């Protein structure tokens, strides 16, 4: 008896699910390249004063963001054109349509999401804890009591003060420059350093024989920004970024510059 009573509701539920799936299928349309980039090119805003992400080298722009922009454009099948814009003008250039997208070492800023949309991250410039290779875990508690090197008045400084406010305690070693903090770890004068990822990667390249351990302490994802109403463009760029991640090309580009 019970089974018979439930039968109509099961039919109704199944019908609803089928209708929902049908509606989703109808709603989803693959992005259209001609709608996404009607000018037949992808115009990308970069700030060419911030190596290794972008550098204006005597009129020629180069850097990680440029290589990434070219790789995305190649995935989409259109040429890329880069426009060098100072940091302060980047978002205005995007909103006014001067450029189609921004690839310029931009962190994801929730305050801007009423007008624009970010892709998935392509790089994480969070703070990293760096130690000698033989030390144990790298979390704030494990570093308690240790000598911690950092750049004075930087975001690392703020982070260490936040950990201390939570009850941790460190022998603080402030330095004028972040590379001095890394020198302190490399020369065994500090137990650990807290440093942003790109500074650490560049330093590690300069000291190829330096054996160390590193781990993210905070996250600061960089992503590509597009206007909120450019849905097709966003889909194409984000899909291309996925493809570059899957193929290993993104890792190759990041590894080349950092």
């Amino acid at each position, binding site marked *: 008896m019970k089974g018979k009573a439930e039968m109509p509701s099961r039919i109704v539920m199944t019908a609803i699910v089928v209708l929902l799936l049908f509606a989703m299928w109808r709603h989803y349309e693959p992005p259209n390249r001609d709608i996404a980039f009607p000018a037949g090119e992808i115009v990308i805003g970069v700030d060419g004063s*911030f190596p290794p992400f972008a550098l204006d080298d005597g009129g020629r722009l180069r850097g990680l963001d440029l290589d990434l922009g070219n790789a995305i454009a190649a995935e989409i099948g259109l040429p890329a054109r880069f426009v060098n814009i100072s*940091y302060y*003008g980047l978002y205005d250039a995007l909103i006014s349509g001067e450029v189609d997208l921004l690839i310029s070492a931009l962190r994801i800023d929730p305050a801007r999401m009423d007008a624009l949309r970010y892709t998935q991250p392509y790089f994480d410039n969070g703070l990293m804890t760096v130690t000698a290779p033989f030390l144990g875990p790298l979390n704030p508690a494990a570093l308690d009591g240790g000598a911690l090197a950092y750049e004075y008045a930087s975001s690392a400084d*703020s982070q260490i*003060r936040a950990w201390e406010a939570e009850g941790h305690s460190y022998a603080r070693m402030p*330095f004028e420059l972040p*590379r001095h903090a890394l*020198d*302190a770890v490399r020369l065994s004068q*500090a137990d650990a350093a807290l440093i942003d990822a790109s500074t650490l990667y560049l330093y590690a390249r300069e000291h190829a024989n330096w054996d160390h351990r590193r781990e993210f302490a905070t996250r600061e994802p960089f992503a590509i920004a597009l206007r909120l109403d450019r849905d097709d463009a966003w889909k194409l760029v984000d899909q291309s970024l996925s493809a570059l991640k899957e193929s290993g090309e993104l890792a190759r580009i990041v590894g080349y510059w950092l």
Partner: protein
Amino acid sequence: MSDDLGASPPERSKRKRTRKSLALIASLFLFAALLSRLRPPPPNLLPDKRHTVETVKRRVCVHTLLENEVEEATILRSLELARELGAATIVQFFPWAYAETRAGEFSWRLFDRIVQHADRQGLRIIARLGLVPAWLNDDKTKTLNYLPERGFPMFARYAAAFAERYAGAIDELIIWNEPNLSFEWGFQPVDAARYVRLLQAAYPAIKAANPAAVVLAGALAPTLEPRGSSAGLNDLDFLRDMYATGAGDYFDSLAVHTYGLLEAPEAEPAGDGLNFRRVELLREIMLENGDGHKSISITEAGWNDHPRWLYAVRPSQRSAYTIRAYDYIEAHWDWARHLCIWALRYPADLKSYPDGYTLINADFLLKPIYFALQDYARGWERSIRPWLPPPEADS
């Protein structure tokens, strides 16, 4: 008819109890909802005491960015730190878009709060006016810097209303920001004549509202853009064009921005290079046009100490250059009223190289430049070295 009529007495009693319980729960919800509407009034953070700025260098000034602060306590703390620094003056942006959210209706609450707090700290304000209300542009692809010419009288109306409201508290007003850059006009081509027409609309309106007001033109950006560039026009040519199109009678003082970038403050200026003393080239143009009696206010200046920006110097260099820049203008530029450092603090760190321009980070950590400037402004002889010497291999 009630369904209770057919029920047994115990069932009727049970239903009655249920109804009572539901009524009680509903009443409690209603009461809770009413209570939630009764919020305590916001705490009054305005200090009772009016402070004075202790300084021996009246030209020291900082650019604040308080217009986007959510917490009043943050505005208060920022201005306390400006006073403790020894800055007698601040430059603060007062966006038109925030004051006139509906055409013809002004809301001054946010601005009042900033002005009252600055006054209690004993700080003088130079107000920068700009940013176009959304109602003026239907086109959502236009940025809030896009001001069509039909909006000039409306901007003048705002500037006059502002000048009248804050007369006595704010008597220096900058018209627009970096008008020689295209993006500061919503990516319209840069045109000095158009900017002069904006001055011609705003100047008499401000003067009528507050005859004591000092109208500052320009806030010119240091740039080398040649004529025909889509990005802007270099500040020297732009100023010449301003004079050629009749600006001279429509401003009382010139606001300029100057950044040292990689050069020391004493480095010689040149038309084809950007450095701190580029201001002297603008001064020459003023003299050529008979405006030697007018002063210059440097409303943005400084050096950047981000570790990875192409045009940054080390933090210790930044401090030294900044103090030497003040010494330089004390010795050589009697026509310079203020040197305002960009910027005291951003509401949030940008996590990029512009953070290297602030004196205080978003968490209120004071940078070495803050201490150096404080020593200079207050005449203190401290020797604060907040960091350790660089590690050496054999130490």
